[in-house]
Protein backbone atom coordinates (compact mmCIF):
# COMPACT_ATOMS: atom_id res chain seq x y z
CA UNK A 1 0.00 0.00 0.00
CA UNK A 2 2.77 2.35 0.95
CA UNK A 3 4.67 1.27 -2.09
CA UNK A 4 1.88 2.08 -4.50
CA UNK A 5 1.27 5.45 -2.86
CA UNK A 6 4.96 6.24 -3.18
CA UNK A 7 4.92 5.17 -6.84
CA UNK A 8 1.90 7.39 -7.49
CA UNK A 9 3.64 10.37 -5.92
CA UNK A 10 6.75 9.57 -7.99
CA UNK A 11 4.72 9.48 -11.23
CA UNK A 12 3.12 12.82 -10.49
CA UNK A 13 6.11 14.76 -9.21
CA UNK A 14 9.16 13.39 -11.00
CA UNK A 15 8.19 14.63 -14.48
CA UNK A 16 7.28 18.00 -13.06
CA UNK A 17 10.57 18.04 -11.27
CA UNK A 18 12.47 17.18 -14.44
CA UNK A 19 10.64 19.82 -16.51
CA UNK A 20 11.20 22.47 -13.91
CA UNK A 21 14.86 21.81 -13.21
CA UNK A 22 17.39 24.18 -14.72
CA UNK A 23 18.83 22.87 -17.99
CA UNK A 24 20.35 26.08 -19.40
CA UNK A 25 22.35 28.78 -17.65
CA UNK A 26 23.16 32.14 -19.20
CA UNK A 27 26.17 33.94 -17.78
CA UNK A 28 27.84 37.23 -18.41
CA UNK A 29 31.62 37.61 -18.45
CA UNK A 30 33.40 36.10 -15.41
CA UNK A 31 30.72 33.39 -15.11
CA UNK A 32 28.20 35.72 -13.42
CA UNK A 33 24.83 34.03 -13.80
CA UNK A 34 22.37 36.27 -15.65
CA UNK A 35 19.46 33.91 -16.11
CA UNK A 36 18.47 30.25 -15.90
CA UNK A 37 15.93 28.25 -17.88
CA UNK A 38 14.06 25.03 -17.34
CA UNK A 39 12.56 23.15 -20.28
CA UNK A 40 9.14 24.57 -19.30
CA UNK A 41 10.52 28.09 -19.40
CA UNK A 42 12.17 27.52 -22.78
CA UNK A 43 8.88 26.10 -24.10
CA UNK A 44 7.07 29.24 -22.91
CA UNK A 45 9.20 31.41 -25.19
CA UNK A 46 8.36 32.10 -28.84
CA UNK A 47 9.27 28.96 -30.80
CA UNK A 48 11.06 28.87 -34.16
CA UNK A 49 10.54 25.76 -36.26
CA UNK A 50 12.19 24.60 -39.50
CA UNK A 51 13.15 21.45 -41.32
CA UNK A 52 16.81 20.97 -42.12
CA UNK A 53 19.54 18.47 -42.80
CA UNK A 54 22.89 18.42 -41.00
CA UNK A 55 25.97 16.19 -41.09
CA UNK A 56 25.06 14.44 -37.82
CA UNK A 57 21.70 13.00 -38.84
CA UNK A 58 20.40 10.78 -41.61
CA UNK A 59 18.09 12.71 -43.94
CA UNK A 60 16.30 15.75 -42.53
CA UNK A 61 14.32 16.51 -39.39
CA UNK A 62 12.02 19.25 -38.14
CA UNK A 63 13.65 21.13 -35.25
CA UNK A 64 11.97 23.65 -32.96
CA UNK A 65 12.90 25.79 -30.00
CA UNK A 66 13.55 29.43 -29.02
CA UNK A 67 16.00 31.36 -31.17
CA UNK A 68 19.45 32.04 -29.75
CA UNK A 69 18.88 35.72 -30.49
CA UNK A 70 15.82 35.75 -28.23
CA UNK A 71 17.79 34.19 -25.35
CA UNK A 72 20.65 36.69 -25.80
CA UNK A 73 18.11 39.57 -25.96
CA UNK A 74 16.46 38.36 -22.74
CA UNK A 75 19.84 38.24 -21.03
CA UNK A 76 20.10 41.98 -21.74
CA UNK A 77 22.67 41.75 -24.52
CA UNK A 78 20.33 42.74 -27.36
CA UNK A 79 22.71 45.52 -28.44
CA UNK A 80 25.47 43.03 -29.25
CA UNK A 81 26.48 43.43 -32.90
CA UNK A 82 29.76 41.54 -33.12
CA UNK A 83 32.10 39.33 -31.15
CA UNK A 84 31.29 35.85 -29.87
CA UNK A 85 29.16 33.96 -27.41
CA UNK A 86 30.71 30.91 -25.77
CA UNK A 87 28.60 27.74 -25.70
CA UNK A 88 29.37 24.87 -23.34
CA UNK A 89 28.05 21.30 -23.50
CA UNK A 90 27.41 18.84 -20.68
CA UNK A 91 30.74 17.15 -21.45
CA UNK A 92 32.42 20.58 -21.20
CA UNK A 93 32.99 20.79 -24.94
CA UNK A 94 33.08 24.52 -25.83
CA UNK A 95 32.56 26.45 -29.01
CA UNK A 96 32.79 30.15 -29.86
CA UNK A 97 29.79 31.16 -31.91
CA UNK A 98 29.98 34.49 -33.80
CA UNK A 99 27.20 36.95 -32.89
CA UNK A 100 26.83 37.63 -36.63
CA UNK A 101 25.60 34.03 -37.09
CA UNK A 102 22.41 34.46 -35.05
CA UNK A 103 21.85 38.02 -36.30
CA UNK A 104 21.92 36.77 -39.91
CA UNK A 105 20.28 33.33 -39.53
CA UNK A 106 17.59 31.69 -37.42
CA UNK A 107 19.96 29.86 -35.09
CA UNK A 108 17.78 28.01 -32.57
CA UNK A 109 18.22 26.18 -29.27
CA UNK A 110 16.23 23.15 -30.44
CA UNK A 111 14.34 21.29 -27.71
CA UNK A 112 12.26 19.17 -30.09
CA UNK A 113 13.26 17.00 -33.02
CA UNK A 114 10.29 15.87 -35.14
CA UNK A 115 8.00 17.02 -32.29
CA UNK A 116 9.76 14.75 -29.78
CA UNK A 117 11.82 15.85 -26.82
CA UNK A 118 15.47 14.88 -27.17
CA UNK A 119 16.96 12.75 -24.42
CA UNK A 120 20.56 13.10 -23.30
CA UNK A 121 21.29 9.94 -25.25
CA UNK A 122 19.90 11.57 -28.38
CA UNK A 123 21.86 14.88 -28.25
CA UNK A 124 19.29 16.57 -25.96
CA UNK A 125 17.94 18.27 -24.13
CA UNK A 126 19.19 21.28 -26.13
CA UNK A 127 20.83 21.11 -29.55
CA UNK A 128 21.99 24.28 -31.35
CA UNK A 129 20.63 24.04 -34.89
CA UNK A 130 21.33 26.21 -37.97
CA UNK A 131 18.86 26.29 -40.91
CA UNK A 132 21.48 24.68 -43.17
CA UNK A 133 19.05 23.46 -45.82
CA UNK A 134 17.70 27.00 -46.34
CA UNK A 135 21.10 28.69 -46.81
CA UNK A 136 23.82 27.32 -49.08
CA UNK A 137 26.35 29.49 -47.20
CA UNK A 138 25.66 27.48 -44.03
CA UNK A 139 26.70 24.25 -45.74
CA UNK A 140 30.36 25.29 -45.35
CA UNK A 141 32.12 22.79 -43.02
CA UNK A 142 33.02 25.63 -40.65
CA UNK A 143 29.41 25.62 -39.36
CA UNK A 144 29.41 21.89 -38.53
CA UNK A 145 31.40 22.49 -35.33
CA UNK A 146 28.89 25.09 -34.14
CA UNK A 147 26.01 22.59 -34.00
CA UNK A 148 26.78 21.93 -30.34
CA UNK A 149 24.50 19.41 -28.62
CA UNK A 150 23.74 18.68 -24.93
CA UNK A 151 24.08 22.42 -24.42
CA UNK A 152 24.15 23.53 -20.78
CA UNK A 153 25.58 27.05 -20.69
CA UNK A 154 25.89 30.21 -22.74
CA UNK A 155 28.40 32.90 -21.86
CA UNK A 156 27.58 36.29 -23.35
CA UNK A 157 29.84 39.33 -23.68
CA UNK A 158 33.60 39.76 -23.53
Amino acid at each position, binding site marked *: MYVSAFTAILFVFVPTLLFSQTILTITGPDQVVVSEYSLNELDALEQTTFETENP*YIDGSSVFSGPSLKLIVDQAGYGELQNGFVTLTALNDYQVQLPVADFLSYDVILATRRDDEEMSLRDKGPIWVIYPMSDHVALQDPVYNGRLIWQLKQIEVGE
Partner: protein
Amino acid sequence: MMVLRQARWVVFGALLVLLVFIAMNLVSLRGRIDSLDVGTTSSPVWFVNRIEYDELLLERAMNQYIAGFGAVEAVNLRFDLLWSRLVSLGEGTTAATLQDYDVDTTVADDLLALLKSNEATISAMTDENLFDADTTRFLAELIPYNKRLRTFSLTVLAASTKQAKGWRDDVVALSKQNGLLLGLVTGAFLLGLAYLLVENLRTTNSLKEKENLLADATAANIAKSQFISVMNHELRTPLSSIHGAVALLNAGIGGEQSPKSQRLIDIAQSNSEQLSELIQDLLDVEKFSTGTFSFDPQIVNLADFIEDELPAYTALGETYDVEFVLGNLAPGTVCNVDPVRLRQILTNLVSNAAKFSTAGMKVNISLEQPSDTIILSISDTGIGIPEDAKLSIFDAFYQVDSSNERNVGGTGLGLRIAKLIVERMGGKIWFDSEAGVGTTFYVSFPCRADMLNDAPS
Protein backbone atom coordinates in the same frame (compact mmCIF):
# COMPACT_ATOMS: atom_id res chain seq x y z
CA MET B 1 48.39 37.02 -90.96
CA MET B 2 45.30 35.37 -92.48
CA VAL B 3 46.09 32.21 -90.51
CA LEU B 4 46.22 34.28 -87.32
CA ARG B 5 42.93 35.95 -88.15
CA GLN B 6 41.24 32.58 -88.76
CA ALA B 7 42.81 31.12 -85.62
CA ARG B 8 41.49 33.98 -83.51
CA TRP B 9 38.27 32.20 -82.44
CA VAL B 10 40.12 28.95 -81.90
CA VAL B 11 42.52 30.77 -79.56
CA PHE B 12 39.64 32.47 -77.71
CA GLY B 13 37.81 29.15 -77.41
CA ALA B 14 40.91 27.42 -76.10
CA LEU B 15 41.40 30.23 -73.58
CA LEU B 16 37.83 29.83 -72.35
CA VAL B 17 38.22 26.07 -71.98
CA LEU B 18 41.48 26.60 -70.06
CA LEU B 19 39.82 29.09 -67.72
CA VAL B 20 36.96 26.66 -67.02
CA PHE B 21 39.55 23.97 -66.30
CA ILE B 22 41.39 26.21 -63.88
CA ALA B 23 38.15 27.16 -62.12
CA MET B 24 37.18 23.50 -61.82
CA ASN B 25 40.64 22.68 -60.50
CA LEU B 26 40.38 25.41 -57.88
CA VAL B 27 37.00 24.11 -56.69
CA SER B 28 38.44 20.60 -56.53
CA LEU B 29 41.48 21.94 -54.65
CA ARG B 30 39.22 23.64 -52.12
CA GLY B 31 37.34 20.38 -51.59
CA ARG B 32 40.59 18.45 -51.08
CA ILE B 33 41.91 21.02 -48.61
CA ASP B 34 38.62 20.88 -46.66
CA SER B 35 38.88 17.11 -46.57
CA LEU B 36 42.38 17.36 -45.10
CA ASP B 37 40.94 19.14 -42.08
CA VAL B 38 40.53 16.00 -39.93
CA GLY B 39 40.24 18.10 -36.77
CA THR B 40 36.66 19.12 -37.57
CA THR B 41 33.98 17.89 -35.22
CA SER B 42 32.24 15.91 -37.94
CA SER B 43 35.37 13.87 -38.65
CA PRO B 44 35.32 10.21 -37.46
CA VAL B 45 38.77 10.67 -35.89
CA TRP B 46 37.28 13.28 -33.56
CA PHE B 47 34.27 11.07 -32.75
CA VAL B 48 36.28 7.95 -32.05
CA ASN B 49 38.70 9.87 -29.83
CA ARG B 50 35.77 11.35 -27.93
CA ILE B 51 34.31 7.84 -27.39
CA GLU B 52 37.62 6.68 -26.00
CA TYR B 53 37.69 9.71 -23.71
CA ASP B 54 34.03 9.36 -22.64
CA GLU B 55 34.58 5.66 -21.85
CA LEU B 56 37.47 6.62 -19.55
CA LEU B 57 35.29 9.27 -17.89
CA LEU B 58 32.55 6.67 -17.26
CA GLU B 59 35.17 4.31 -15.80
CA ARG B 60 36.42 7.07 -13.52
CA ALA B 61 32.91 8.07 -12.43
CA MET B 62 32.11 4.45 -11.60
CA ASN B 63 35.38 3.96 -9.72
CA GLN B 64 34.69 7.11 -7.70
CA TYR B 65 31.15 5.88 -7.02
CA ILE B 66 32.38 2.49 -5.86
CA ALA B 67 35.07 4.15 -3.73
CA GLY B 68 32.26 6.09 -2.05
CA PHE B 69 33.05 9.67 -3.05
CA GLY B 70 31.27 9.90 -6.39
CA ALA B 71 27.65 10.88 -7.01
CA VAL B 72 25.33 8.55 -8.83
CA GLU B 73 24.25 11.50 -11.05
CA ALA B 74 27.81 11.73 -12.38
CA VAL B 75 27.72 8.05 -13.40
CA ASN B 76 24.32 8.58 -15.06
CA LEU B 77 25.59 11.61 -16.96
CA ARG B 78 28.74 9.83 -18.21
CA PHE B 79 26.69 6.76 -19.13
CA ASP B 80 24.28 8.85 -21.20
CA LEU B 81 27.03 10.91 -22.85
CA LEU B 82 28.90 7.78 -23.92
CA TRP B 83 25.66 6.32 -25.18
CA SER B 84 24.88 9.42 -27.28
CA ARG B 85 28.40 9.40 -28.68
CA LEU B 86 28.13 5.77 -29.74
CA VAL B 87 24.75 6.44 -31.39
CA SER B 88 26.24 9.41 -33.29
CA LEU B 89 28.90 7.15 -34.78
CA GLY B 90 26.18 5.34 -36.74
CA GLU B 91 24.55 8.47 -38.15
CA GLY B 92 25.11 11.11 -40.85
CA THR B 93 28.44 11.76 -42.56
CA THR B 94 30.42 10.09 -39.75
CA ALA B 95 28.79 6.73 -40.53
CA ALA B 96 29.32 7.29 -44.27
CA THR B 97 33.00 8.17 -43.83
CA LEU B 98 33.65 5.17 -41.57
CA GLN B 99 32.08 2.96 -44.20
CA ASP B 100 34.30 4.66 -46.78
CA TYR B 101 37.38 3.92 -44.63
CA ASP B 102 36.26 0.29 -44.52
CA VAL B 103 37.24 -0.10 -40.83
CA ASP B 104 35.75 -2.65 -38.44
CA THR B 105 33.27 -0.91 -36.07
CA THR B 106 32.41 -4.01 -34.03
CA VAL B 107 33.95 -2.53 -30.87
CA ALA B 108 31.54 0.44 -30.95
CA ASP B 109 28.57 -1.85 -31.61
CA ASP B 110 29.67 -4.15 -28.76
CA LEU B 111 30.08 -1.24 -26.36
CA LEU B 112 26.62 0.16 -27.19
CA ALA B 113 25.16 -3.34 -26.67
CA LEU B 114 26.96 -3.51 -23.30
CA LEU B 115 25.49 -0.14 -22.27
CA LYS B 116 22.00 -1.22 -23.35
CA SER B 117 22.22 -4.48 -21.39
CA ASN B 118 23.35 -2.58 -18.29
CA GLU B 119 20.69 0.14 -18.40
CA ALA B 120 18.99 -1.55 -15.42
CA THR B 121 22.30 -1.77 -13.53
CA ILE B 122 22.72 2.00 -13.84
CA SER B 123 19.08 2.76 -12.85
CA ALA B 124 19.46 0.52 -9.79
CA MET B 125 22.47 2.44 -8.52
CA THR B 126 21.77 4.47 -5.38
CA ASP B 127 24.04 6.36 -3.07
CA GLU B 128 23.58 3.68 -0.39
CA ASN B 129 24.23 0.61 -2.48
CA LEU B 130 27.95 1.16 -2.98
CA PHE B 131 29.15 -2.40 -3.39
CA ASP B 132 26.47 -3.74 -5.66
CA ALA B 133 27.75 -6.84 -7.45
CA ASP B 134 26.20 -5.75 -10.76
CA THR B 135 28.03 -2.43 -10.64
CA THR B 136 31.42 -4.03 -10.17
CA ARG B 137 30.65 -6.63 -12.86
CA PHE B 138 29.67 -3.85 -15.30
CA LEU B 139 32.89 -1.99 -14.50
CA ALA B 140 34.92 -5.18 -15.05
CA GLU B 141 33.23 -5.63 -18.44
CA LEU B 142 33.81 -2.02 -19.31
CA ILE B 143 37.56 -1.87 -18.61
CA PRO B 144 38.72 -4.08 -21.55
CA TYR B 145 37.04 -1.62 -23.93
CA ASN B 146 39.66 0.88 -22.94
CA LYS B 147 42.33 -0.96 -24.90
CA ARG B 148 39.98 -2.00 -27.71
CA LEU B 149 38.87 1.61 -28.22
CA ARG B 150 42.53 2.72 -28.30
CA THR B 151 43.15 0.25 -31.15
CA PHE B 152 39.95 1.38 -32.88
CA SER B 153 41.09 5.02 -32.61
CA LEU B 154 44.45 4.20 -34.16
CA THR B 155 42.83 2.23 -36.98
CA VAL B 156 40.51 5.10 -37.84
CA LEU B 157 43.38 7.58 -37.63
CA ALA B 158 45.49 5.39 -39.94
CA ALA B 159 42.65 5.15 -42.48
CA SER B 160 42.13 8.91 -42.31
CA THR B 161 45.86 9.58 -42.75
CA LYS B 162 46.00 7.23 -45.72
CA GLN B 163 43.10 9.00 -47.37
CA ALA B 164 44.59 12.38 -46.49
CA LYS B 165 47.87 11.35 -48.11
CA GLY B 166 45.95 10.48 -51.29
CA TRP B 167 44.27 13.88 -51.11
CA ARG B 168 47.58 15.62 -50.50
CA ASP B 169 49.02 13.91 -53.58
CA ASP B 170 45.96 15.07 -55.53
CA VAL B 171 46.42 18.62 -54.24
CA VAL B 172 50.07 18.63 -55.34
CA ALA B 173 49.13 17.22 -58.78
CA LEU B 174 46.34 19.78 -59.15
CA SER B 175 48.69 22.60 -58.17
CA LYS B 176 51.18 21.51 -60.82
CA GLN B 177 48.42 21.20 -63.40
CA ASN B 178 47.16 24.67 -62.52
CA GLY B 179 50.67 26.08 -62.93
CA LEU B 180 50.89 24.57 -66.41
CA LEU B 181 47.43 25.84 -67.35
CA LEU B 182 48.29 29.29 -66.07
CA GLY B 183 51.42 29.23 -68.27
CA LEU B 184 49.29 28.28 -71.28
CA VAL B 185 46.77 31.04 -70.58
CA THR B 186 49.59 33.57 -70.24
CA GLY B 187 51.08 32.34 -73.53
CA ALA B 188 47.73 32.59 -75.31
CA PHE B 189 47.19 36.04 -73.86
CA LEU B 190 50.60 37.24 -75.11
CA LEU B 191 49.86 35.69 -78.52
CA GLY B 192 46.52 37.51 -78.64
CA LEU B 193 48.22 40.77 -77.68
CA ALA B 194 50.87 40.31 -80.40
CA TYR B 195 48.13 39.57 -82.91
CA LEU B 196 46.24 42.74 -81.97
CA LEU B 197 49.43 44.84 -82.29
CA VAL B 198 50.32 43.37 -85.70
CA GLU B 199 46.74 43.73 -86.90
CA ASN B 200 46.69 47.36 -85.77
CA LEU B 201 49.97 48.06 -87.60
CA ARG B 202 48.66 46.33 -90.70
CA THR B 203 45.45 48.39 -90.72
CA THR B 204 47.49 51.59 -90.46
CA ASN B 205 49.70 50.49 -93.38
CA SER B 206 46.76 49.40 -95.47
CA LEU B 207 45.08 52.76 -94.89
CA LYS B 208 48.20 54.59 -96.04
CA GLU B 209 48.41 52.36 -99.11
CA LYS B 210 44.80 53.14 -99.99
CA GLU B 211 45.41 56.86 -99.57
CA ASN B 212 48.39 56.62 -101.93
CA LEU B 213 46.37 54.66 -104.48
CA LEU B 214 43.59 57.22 -104.32
CA ALA B 215 46.09 60.05 -104.86
CA ASP B 216 47.58 58.17 -107.84
CA ALA B 217 44.15 57.51 -109.30
CA THR B 218 43.16 61.15 -108.92
CA ALA B 219 46.40 62.24 -110.61
CA ALA B 220 45.84 59.74 -113.43
CA ASN B 221 42.30 60.99 -113.93
CA ILE B 222 43.48 64.59 -114.13
CA ALA B 223 46.19 63.56 -116.62
CA LYS B 224 43.61 61.75 -118.75
CA SER B 225 41.28 64.74 -118.81
CA GLN B 226 44.19 66.93 -119.78
CA PHE B 227 45.12 64.49 -122.55
CA ILE B 228 41.53 64.47 -123.87
CA SER B 229 41.48 68.25 -123.81
CA VAL B 230 44.77 68.37 -125.76
CA MET B 231 43.42 65.86 -128.25
CA ASN B 232 40.25 67.89 -128.70
CA HIS B 233 41.96 71.15 -129.44
CA GLU B 234 45.44 70.33 -130.69
CA LEU B 235 44.54 67.27 -132.78
CA ARG B 236 41.09 67.99 -134.12
CA THR B 237 41.79 71.52 -135.33
CA PRO B 238 44.68 70.61 -137.69
CA LEU B 239 42.79 67.49 -138.73
CA SER B 240 39.81 69.63 -139.77
CA SER B 241 42.17 71.70 -141.95
CA ILE B 242 43.57 68.54 -143.57
CA HIS B 243 40.09 67.15 -144.06
CA GLY B 244 38.88 70.43 -145.65
CA ALA B 245 41.90 70.71 -147.90
CA VAL B 246 41.60 67.14 -149.14
CA ALA B 247 37.87 67.62 -149.72
CA LEU B 248 38.60 70.71 -151.81
CA LEU B 249 41.24 68.80 -153.82
CA ASN B 250 38.72 66.00 -154.33
CA ALA B 251 36.16 68.53 -155.51
CA GLY B 252 38.62 69.48 -158.25
CA ILE B 253 39.89 72.81 -156.97
CA GLY B 254 43.42 71.85 -157.98
CA GLY B 255 42.28 70.95 -161.45
CA GLU B 256 42.02 67.51 -162.93
CA GLN B 257 44.17 64.93 -161.14
CA SER B 258 45.97 62.06 -162.67
CA PRO B 259 44.26 58.72 -161.73
CA LYS B 260 47.22 57.95 -159.43
CA SER B 261 46.96 61.32 -157.61
CA GLN B 262 43.21 60.93 -157.40
CA ARG B 263 43.59 57.51 -155.68
CA LEU B 264 46.03 59.04 -153.16
CA ILE B 265 43.62 61.92 -152.49
CA ASP B 266 40.78 59.38 -151.91
CA ILE B 267 42.93 57.47 -149.42
CA ALA B 268 43.82 60.71 -147.63
CA GLN B 269 40.17 61.74 -147.42
CA SER B 270 38.99 58.32 -146.24
CA ASN B 271 41.64 58.14 -143.54
CA SER B 272 41.13 61.68 -142.33
CA GLU B 273 37.39 60.91 -141.99
CA GLN B 274 38.18 57.76 -140.00
CA LEU B 275 40.52 59.71 -137.74
CA SER B 276 37.85 62.37 -137.13
CA GLU B 277 35.39 59.61 -136.18
CA LEU B 278 37.86 58.09 -133.76
CA ILE B 279 38.49 61.42 -132.05
CA GLN B 280 34.75 62.09 -131.86
CA ASP B 281 34.12 58.64 -130.37
CA LEU B 282 36.86 59.07 -127.77
CA LEU B 283 35.46 62.45 -126.76
CA ASP B 284 31.98 60.92 -126.43
CA VAL B 285 33.21 58.12 -124.15
CA GLU B 286 35.07 60.67 -122.06
CA LYS B 287 31.94 62.83 -121.80
CA PHE B 288 30.00 59.80 -120.58
CA SER B 289 32.59 59.05 -117.93
CA THR B 290 32.65 62.64 -116.70
CA GLY B 291 28.86 62.93 -116.93
CA THR B 292 28.97 65.84 -119.37
CA PHE B 293 27.33 64.01 -122.26
CA SER B 294 24.38 66.22 -123.21
CA PHE B 295 20.90 65.20 -124.30
CA ASP B 296 18.41 67.40 -126.11
CA PRO B 297 15.13 65.45 -126.46
CA GLN B 298 12.60 66.51 -129.07
CA ILE B 299 9.34 65.18 -130.51
CA VAL B 300 10.40 62.90 -133.34
CA ASN B 301 8.30 60.86 -135.79
CA LEU B 302 10.47 57.74 -135.84
CA ALA B 303 9.37 56.28 -139.19
CA ASP B 304 9.94 59.60 -140.93
CA PHE B 305 13.28 59.95 -139.13
CA ILE B 306 14.57 56.58 -140.36
CA GLU B 307 13.34 57.16 -143.92
CA ASP B 308 15.09 60.54 -143.94
CA GLU B 309 18.34 58.99 -142.69
CA LEU B 310 18.44 56.24 -145.30
CA PRO B 311 20.03 58.29 -148.12
CA ALA B 312 22.99 59.08 -145.83
CA TYR B 313 23.92 55.38 -145.90
CA THR B 314 24.00 55.10 -149.69
CA ALA B 315 27.78 55.60 -149.89
CA LEU B 316 28.26 53.01 -147.09
CA GLY B 317 26.05 50.54 -148.97
CA GLU B 318 28.05 51.03 -152.13
CA THR B 319 31.36 50.57 -150.29
CA TYR B 320 30.38 47.18 -148.81
CA ASP B 321 28.01 46.19 -151.63
CA VAL B 322 24.94 45.86 -149.40
CA GLU B 323 21.42 47.13 -149.77
CA PHE B 324 19.48 48.76 -146.89
CA VAL B 325 15.85 47.67 -146.78
CA LEU B 326 13.15 49.17 -144.57
CA GLY B 327 10.85 46.62 -142.95
CA ASN B 328 7.81 47.44 -140.81
CA LEU B 329 8.33 51.00 -139.50
CA ALA B 330 5.24 51.41 -137.27
CA PRO B 331 4.09 54.54 -139.09
CA GLY B 332 2.95 57.49 -137.00
CA THR B 333 5.06 56.55 -133.94
CA VAL B 334 6.03 59.74 -132.20
CA CYS B 335 8.62 59.79 -129.39
CA ASN B 336 10.44 62.24 -127.20
CA VAL B 337 14.10 61.53 -128.05
CA ASP B 338 17.31 63.32 -128.89
CA PRO B 339 17.56 62.96 -132.71
CA VAL B 340 21.33 63.52 -132.70
CA ARG B 341 21.90 60.65 -130.24
CA LEU B 342 19.36 58.43 -132.01
CA ARG B 343 21.24 59.06 -135.28
CA GLN B 344 24.51 58.04 -133.52
CA ILE B 345 22.98 54.73 -132.46
CA LEU B 346 21.46 54.06 -135.88
CA THR B 347 24.68 54.96 -137.76
CA ASN B 348 26.80 52.71 -135.51
CA LEU B 349 24.51 49.72 -135.91
CA VAL B 350 23.91 50.23 -139.64
CA SER B 351 27.63 50.65 -140.39
CA ASN B 352 28.45 47.51 -138.33
CA ALA B 353 25.77 45.58 -140.21
CA ALA B 354 27.19 46.77 -143.54
CA LYS B 355 30.77 45.96 -142.57
CA PHE B 356 30.01 42.41 -141.47
CA SER B 357 27.50 41.57 -144.23
CA THR B 358 28.33 39.28 -147.07
CA ALA B 359 28.62 41.28 -150.28
CA GLY B 360 25.38 41.47 -152.27
CA MET B 361 23.13 40.81 -149.29
CA LYS B 362 20.55 43.06 -147.60
CA VAL B 363 20.44 44.86 -144.25
CA ASN B 364 16.94 45.09 -142.84
CA ILE B 365 15.88 48.00 -140.61
CA SER B 366 12.54 47.82 -138.84
CA LEU B 367 10.64 49.45 -136.00
CA GLU B 368 7.97 48.04 -133.67
CA GLN B 369 6.02 49.43 -130.76
CA PRO B 370 4.59 46.80 -128.44
CA SER B 371 2.98 48.76 -125.56
CA ASP B 372 5.09 51.70 -124.28
CA THR B 373 8.41 50.52 -125.67
CA ILE B 374 10.01 51.10 -129.05
CA ILE B 375 12.06 48.25 -130.48
CA LEU B 376 14.42 49.10 -133.30
CA SER B 377 16.10 46.16 -135.06
CA ILE B 378 18.88 46.00 -137.65
CA SER B 379 19.56 42.57 -139.20
CA ASP B 380 22.33 41.52 -141.47
CA THR B 381 23.19 38.31 -143.26
CA GLY B 382 26.83 38.07 -142.46
CA ILE B 383 29.57 36.24 -140.62
CA GLY B 384 27.82 36.53 -137.25
CA ILE B 385 29.47 37.19 -133.88
CA PRO B 386 31.84 34.45 -132.72
CA GLU B 387 30.90 32.79 -129.39
CA ASP B 388 34.01 34.06 -127.58
CA ALA B 389 33.22 37.66 -128.55
CA LYS B 390 29.59 37.72 -127.41
CA LEU B 391 30.35 38.67 -123.82
CA SER B 392 32.81 41.46 -124.66
CA ILE B 393 31.22 43.05 -127.68
CA PHE B 394 29.93 46.08 -125.79
CA ASP B 395 33.31 46.73 -124.08
CA ALA B 396 35.37 49.78 -125.07
CA PHE B 397 37.99 49.15 -127.77
CA TYR B 398 36.78 45.61 -128.32
CA GLN B 399 36.95 44.47 -131.92
CA VAL B 400 35.93 41.13 -133.29
CA ASP B 401 39.00 39.36 -134.56
CA SER B 402 38.34 39.28 -138.26
CA SER B 403 41.82 38.32 -139.41
CA ASN B 404 40.42 35.58 -141.61
CA GLU B 405 37.88 37.96 -143.13
CA ARG B 406 38.25 41.32 -144.70
CA ASN B 407 39.54 44.16 -142.57
CA VAL B 408 36.48 46.05 -141.44
CA GLY B 409 38.17 48.95 -139.68
CA GLY B 410 36.45 51.01 -136.94
CA THR B 411 37.46 52.36 -133.57
CA GLY B 412 36.08 49.63 -131.32
CA LEU B 413 34.00 52.28 -129.56
CA GLY B 414 30.83 52.30 -131.64
CA LEU B 415 28.87 49.65 -129.76
CA ARG B 416 30.17 50.94 -126.45
CA ILE B 417 28.85 54.43 -127.20
CA ALA B 418 25.54 53.01 -128.53
CA LYS B 419 25.09 51.05 -125.30
CA LEU B 420 25.90 54.09 -123.12
CA ILE B 421 23.41 56.25 -125.02
CA VAL B 422 20.64 53.60 -124.97
CA GLU B 423 21.06 53.04 -121.25
CA ARG B 424 20.99 56.77 -120.68
CA MET B 425 17.64 56.82 -122.53
CA GLY B 426 16.38 54.21 -120.07
CA GLY B 427 16.55 51.47 -122.68
CA LYS B 428 18.44 48.29 -123.52
CA ILE B 429 20.58 46.99 -126.37
CA TRP B 430 21.10 43.31 -127.20
CA PHE B 431 21.59 40.97 -130.13
CA ASP B 432 20.83 37.57 -131.66
CA SER B 433 23.65 36.12 -133.66
CA GLU B 434 24.55 32.89 -135.38
CA ALA B 435 27.95 32.37 -136.94
CA GLY B 436 27.69 32.25 -140.74
CA VAL B 437 23.98 33.15 -140.71
CA GLY B 438 23.84 36.73 -139.48
CA THR B 439 23.24 39.08 -136.61
CA THR B 440 20.27 41.15 -135.46
CA PHE B 441 20.84 44.02 -133.05
CA TYR B 442 17.87 45.26 -131.02
CA VAL B 443 17.50 48.58 -129.30
CA SER B 444 14.54 49.22 -127.04
CA PHE B 445 13.67 52.42 -125.23
CA PRO B 446 10.57 53.73 -123.47
CA CYS B 447 8.15 55.82 -125.48
CA ARG B 448 5.01 56.75 -123.57
CA ALA B 449 2.32 59.31 -124.28
CA ASP B 450 2.99 61.15 -121.00
CA MET B 451 6.65 61.62 -121.99
CA LEU B 452 5.51 63.81 -124.90
CA ASN B 453 4.13 66.43 -122.51
CA ASP B 454 7.59 66.84 -120.96
CA ALA B 455 9.10 67.72 -124.28
CA PRO B 456 9.60 71.30 -125.40
CA SER B 457 7.19 72.06 -128.19
